């Protein structure tokens, strides 16, 4: 059985939903479908908390936002893309407001903004501390206005169909029934989010398994800047649940076991009782996470059964502020740590949060494969470079979701219909899923064991600080895990909602993505932003002011090329915080 659409969006989070609306508005005659392995309102956008940045203050300028983003990225982002991004972000956020998003307001009814890490002006729009939740639900409910947007809820795309250098559709598995269908399309936009689940401690939901990245990678599109993995400085120790940066922008302090605001030792400024922009706790995420590692090495972190932590001190903010501006933070701490941030210190540690890297795209979301686009965390344009500033990723989903949607619509309107050659590929995939996976029994290992192994390898080799030896060992361990994954056992051979099969498919996606991360990290012999090499501690603009592009070889190995960064008006400089 085959379904036919003009544009298929893989993933139904902020980027996917925004792209769908963009297609529906750009060309109502096009048939557009969202294929998501979960219901759209379950997409991980829902757990974003802090806010979305967009210039609206009278004292703020687009150039300021651009500079903050560029310096925050350690000059690895493409400045033309950043300029387009900062210009469009406020309009996208206003569009969301028009669609009903309950942005928090000033008493006079105007949009309120708050400070955020790495930004020199206050420009982060927020909806209490559930920004992602409100944004996603607003977008989802708005898509319901367009009856032309078809949805395949709980369908997992397992393969991109590419023929003649252009994408011609996808193969997808319906969770409920186990049936595998070919959905042909003239354009496909990957909006599947990041891959935090390749690491053991992450803010990411279970569904963040890098599916779209793996799909593109296997189809021949390169992944870009995969070595740049963002650690969010404040996650809860056992669960990895995110404690938003907003807690710090409202005035929270990070203190070590001596009650000392240790960030002042790491060239991030001097402590001030009130939050100071781009200083101390409002520094960029990579520097804060790196400071944590040093504190642990100095023995100044607090030991807990779940590893070393530091404390986030919100007590001086007072209950009223916490209940108004950070109610979800309070709820999370109470439920998951049995701690009330109003009166107690919150234990936190850096946890993997965001992938700066992803499918290589241009400013319009286009990948080198004709008809294949990507947007959101799954893509790498790049506007985040080596380190993303907080509150840039929600507008990134909106701006580039819209751009990719419009570009895909334009392409699809002119593209020829998919040929019948892809149907053979589709049948192959159907057989593969049936034969290789569902019939697999009696293997030596469970999926969970291999997954845990992969996560441990990534934690040990590709953590906040890396070195060549550990990375090389990691690469080898991953190759071994790939082998073991191929013969992992499946208990569940049912066709009806077989979540073990899904886990197996996700694991293979994660292993491919993990290999890409380690390969790129090994090649990049410098330290920049979130990629820190103890054997190459300095930034090397001569050799590495470039994006890593990783291509999958037929034997599964990674081939890496470099693509120079687009520098426009901001020549590379030093990142200065706190001064």
């Amino acid at each position, binding site marked *: 059985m085959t379904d036919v659409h003009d544009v298929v969006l893989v993933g139904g989070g902020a980027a996917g939903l925004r792209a769908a609306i963009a297609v529906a508005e750009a060309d109502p005659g096009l048939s557009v479908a969202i294929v998501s392995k979960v219901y759209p309102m379950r997409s991980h956008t829902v757990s974003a908390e802090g806010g979305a940045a967009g210039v609206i203050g009278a004292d703020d300028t687009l150039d300021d936002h651009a500079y903050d983003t560029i310096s925050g990225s350690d000059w690895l982002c493409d400045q033309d893309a950043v300029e387009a991004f900062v210009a469009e972000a406020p309009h996208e956020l206003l569009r969301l407001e028009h669609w009903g998003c309950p942005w928090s307001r000033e008493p006079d*009814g105007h949009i309120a903004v708050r400070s955020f890490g790495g930004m020199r002006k206050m420009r982060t729009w927020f909806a209490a501390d559930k920004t992602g939740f409100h944004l996603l639900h607003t977008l989802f409910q708005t898509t319901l206005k367009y009856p032309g947007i078809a949805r395949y809820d709980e369908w997992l795309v397992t393969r991109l169909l590419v023929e003649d250098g252009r994408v011609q559709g996808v193969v997808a598995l319906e969770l409920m029934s186990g049936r595998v269908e070919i959905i042909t399309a003239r354009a496909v936009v990957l909006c599947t989010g990041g891959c935090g689940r390749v690491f053991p401690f992450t803010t990411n939901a279970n569904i963040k398994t890098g599916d779209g990245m793996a799909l593109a990678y296997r189809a021949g599109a390169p992944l870009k800047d995969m070595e740049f993995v963002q650690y969010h400085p404040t996650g809860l120790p056992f669960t990895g649940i995110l404690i938003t940066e907003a807690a710090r922008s409202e005035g929270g302090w990070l203190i070590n076991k001596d009650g000392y605001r240790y960030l002042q030792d790491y060239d991030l400024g001097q402590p001030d009782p009130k939050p100071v922009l781009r200083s101390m706790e409002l520094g960029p995420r990579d520097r804060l996470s790196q400071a944590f590692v040093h504190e642990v090495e100095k023995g100044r972190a607090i030991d807990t059964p779940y590893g070393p932590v530091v404390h986030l001190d919100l007590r001086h903010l007072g209950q009223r502020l916490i209940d108004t501006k950070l109610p979800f933070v309070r709820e999370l701490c109470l439920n998951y740590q049995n701690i009330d941030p109003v009166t107690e210190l919150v234990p936190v540690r850096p946890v993997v949060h965001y992938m700066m890297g992803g499918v290589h795209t241009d400013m319009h979301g286009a990948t080198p494969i004709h008809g294949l686009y990507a947007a959101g965390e799954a893509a790498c344009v790049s506007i985040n470079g080596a380190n993303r500033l907080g509150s840039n990723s929600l507008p990134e989903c909106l701006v580039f979701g819209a751009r990719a949607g419009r570009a895909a619509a334009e392409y699809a309107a002119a593209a020829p219909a998919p040929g019948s050659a892809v149907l053979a590929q589709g049948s192959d995939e159907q057989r593969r899923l049936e034969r290789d996976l569902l019939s697999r029994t009696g293997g030596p290992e469970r*999926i969970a064991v291999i997954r845990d192994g992969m996560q441990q390898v990534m934690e040990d080799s590709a953590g906040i600080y890396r070195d060549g030896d550990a990375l090389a060992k990691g690469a080898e361990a991953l190759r071994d895990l790939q082998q073991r994954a191929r013969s992992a056992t499946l208990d569940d051979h*049912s066709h009806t909602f077989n979540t073990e099969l899904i886990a197996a498919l996700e694991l293979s996606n994660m292993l491919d993505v993990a290999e890409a991360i380690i390969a790129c990290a090994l090649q990049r012999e410098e330290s920049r932003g979130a990629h820190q090499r103890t054997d190459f501690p300095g930034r090397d603009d001569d050799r590495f002011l470039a994006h890593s592009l990783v291509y999958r070889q037929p034997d599964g190995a990674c081939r890496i090329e470099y693509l120079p960064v687009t520098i426009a008006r901001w020549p590379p400089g030093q990142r200065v915080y706190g001064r």
Partner: protein
Amino acid sequence: MTDTIPMHVTRYRPEQETAPTVEEYEVPLRRDWAVLDGLNYIKDRQDGTLSYRWSCRMGICGSCGMTVNGEPMLTCATFLTEYKPGPVRVEPLSNFPVIRDLVVEIGDFLRKLPKVMPWIVRDTEKPTAEGEYLQTPDEQDAYKQYSMCINCMLCYSACPVYGLDPHFLGPAAIALAQRYNLDSRDHGAADRLELLTHPDGVWGCTLVGECTRACPKDVDPAGAIQRYKLTAAMQSLKAFLLPRGAR
């Protein structure tokens, strides 16, 4: 010897059986473990055939709703220690067809949701270049509570009216309609009136109140429904008493 707790989990394998059965497992009893962690332990280490939905594990995505010891709960926000010494009985959400094990079919809600027009309806639109629609914090408070719904379906599971009559629009759908009705930027209340005042709309609700009790996000759908009954009644009265022109 580490503490353990028994979990009795409903299984349903449609390819093998016509009715659900219960399987008993034993999982470690850790202080921080939610019921979901127990289920993950079973699936990862004991029985990979157990199917259930989960994602964010922080109570915001709404995927992991199940019936725990008879009550609809988010399994990621319910802790095993609360049920010591057990057993912890885990069943799929009631009032929904069961697809497999703990996975229920929620397509009914997704078909009903667009009918209440859960989007901003305006008489006149303003281009984004002209800025935001002003809304004071007070105006936002008027609907804020109803905007907190994570679509977890616990309210539908708790509602006996929905259990007896699946045509009932249901708590979350009506609460979301109210979220837009009470939003000062919206002008669509009149458009939503007809569906909401249908016998399967607000008038289907007999104010059992279980939906509000079950709601993990304090949306208070029962309150939303009763308020709308008052609004709808006033509308009818006005329509009856006032001449057409004055309405």
